[in-house]
């Protein structure tokens, strides 16, 4: 009779194991919850002090200004007044520029590796691209600081500014105005682009490879050229997944700290031109947090972190949702 009530399979370690592993899974949620709670708690003093002005603060327009309103972007540890507008704008603009540069090249690399590359070369090249995706971002940042920024200032920025000085009022001159030291919004975006490029290229390649061979062969079978197969069959087939990957890349670029901090110039105002210094949320936190002067300064930085979290969380959630519903 006891065999029925007590199955031979019963093992007292089973429920313990279930609870322990359940606890580990729950710990992940606790960490994420704690992360959000700590950002809200730490950022609250700044948010309640400045209210909506933390996000958008108006000021009196200077005389002779044609616009209807002017936005103030204070970030002043001396007077303890902070506004997040400039870092938010810097974060979004640099990330979008980076994606703009990286996206066509990443698609090109993925198409080349899946379609045109000689077989003997495709595997090593793909592995190389994947390995490069793992290089720590501080290495990209150092390269930007020591190699790319000086080169850019000397061979691109200076000649452009000299050319623009012929006609200082043209839009071209306004676009390239700035301090010619190579540390600006544009170079930071290029470094960001180089950093997200291997990641995006390798995920695009995975996505293209996931397409059933019959689909591709059918298109070739009716006489389509590789260009037509790519644009009318492959890309539409994985369109949703590609948008997901783009959003993942965007999420990376938005939150990237080290590749940007070295080279964006770190000034808390709206970038007035493409070659003007700027700042991102992550670079501001990295630069100032350990040396924050007042409690309100620390709190303003944590509140910036909260904004960054909300932006990246939204982007990543959309990305995951798109990728999980992609048909294969």
């Amino acid at each position, binding site marked *: 009779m006891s065999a029925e009530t007590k199955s031979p399979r019963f093992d007292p370690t089973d429920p313990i194991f279930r609870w322990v592993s359940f606890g580990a899974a729950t710990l992940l949620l606790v960490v994420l919850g704690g*992360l959000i709670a700590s950002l809200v708690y730490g950022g609250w003093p700044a948010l309640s002090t400045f209210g909506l002005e933390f996000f958008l603060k108006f000021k009196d327009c200077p005389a002779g200004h044609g616009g209807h309103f002017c936005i103030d972007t204070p970030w002043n540890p001396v007077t303890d007044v902070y506004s997040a507008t400039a870092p938010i704008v810097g974060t979004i603009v640099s990330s979008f520029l980076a994606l703009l540069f990286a996206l066509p090249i990443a698609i090109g690399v993925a198409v080349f590796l899946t379609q045109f590359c000689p077989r003997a070369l495709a595997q090593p090249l793909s592995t190389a691209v994947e390995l490069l995706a793992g290089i720590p971002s501080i290495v990209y940042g150092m390269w930007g600081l020591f190699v790319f920024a000086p080169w850019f200032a000397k061979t691109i920025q200076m000649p452009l500014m000299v050319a623009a000085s012929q006609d200082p009022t043209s839009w071209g001159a306004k676009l390239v105005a700035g301090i010619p030291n190579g540390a600006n919004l544009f170079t930071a975006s290029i470094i960001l682009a180089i950093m997200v490029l291997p990641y995006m290229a390798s995920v695009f390649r995975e996505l293209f490879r996931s397409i059933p061979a019959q689909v591709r062969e059918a298109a070739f079978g009716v006489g389509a050229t590789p260009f*037509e197969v790519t644009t009318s069959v492959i890309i539409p087939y994985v369109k949703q997944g590609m948008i997901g990957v783009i959003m993942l890349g965007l999420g990376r670029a938005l939150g990237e*700290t*080290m590749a940007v901090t070295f080279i964006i110039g770190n000034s808390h105002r709206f970038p007035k031109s493409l070659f003007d210094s700027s700042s991102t949320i992550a670079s501001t936190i990295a630069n100032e947090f350990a040396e924050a002067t007042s409690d309100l300064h620390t709190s303003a930085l944590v509140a910036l972190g909260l904004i960054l979290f909300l932006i990246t969380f939204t982007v990543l959630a959309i990305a995951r949702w798109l990728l999980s519903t992609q048909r294969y």
Partner: protein
Amino acid sequence: MDRALRRKLANYVFIGLCVIGTAIALGALALILWSLFSQGIGGMNPKIFTMDTPAAGSEGGLRNAIVGSILMCGVGMIIAVVVGILAGTWLAEIGGDTTYGHIVRFLNDVLLSAPSILIGLFVYELLVFKSNPLSLGHFSGWAGAISLAILATPIVTRTTEDILNLQPNALREAGMALGASQFTTIRSIIWKAAGSGLLTGGLLGFARISGETAPLLFTALGNQFYNGNLSQPMASLPVTMFNFALTPYEDLNKLAWAGALLVAVAVLGVNILGRWLAREKNAGH
């Protein structure tokens, strides 16, 4: 123009653009690797491993930073592997199909790609900031290790779940048929069969955290002196690189490049090892 010719031309232009794009990408990355190796090897010498970080103008190495990085990554990885394998096993074998399981999986993915600097802020508020009963009240190696653990755990969880899902159900049925309990089946059959895959997950997590700078900036902070005590501020390679790269002193910049080379070689080595293990396993099937 003839239609066939036009299609052919468009195709050639397209192939050309793809080749150019690949050349630009690989060229840029090759330039970075070239700088890394040429500058890094220039700064490489035995003193890197035997002397601590110097003040500008005096001789020194990176010993304290290397030891700090190894200690914090090591402690972080131990936590990440234990929590990650258990959580991944729960998702794959026990509760992954429940609503709660779906939530855990989704939020794990979010945590996986959350900006690492926010993890640093969180751990600062939790373990460094004074007004908190849990807090140590000062910068410490523990805080750095916990930050790294939080970064690596989602990776280990994810790979563990993926690897366990690849194990054939016949293995689980075989365990049950022998009358083994679920825990015994998982421990002695599933985990064993997935062994090298689990190791790969751990290695990928390790590769990710060993170059992380942002979460250490205001948790472990850094330390000019040799310190093996995790409850004190601790130097790490990435933070030392960050600080030294931003100084105007050439000798410190050189040390930063040497550190960058060390970190990059470690990350690449661990990644290659992980891939090789994963491939060995696949070849064995």
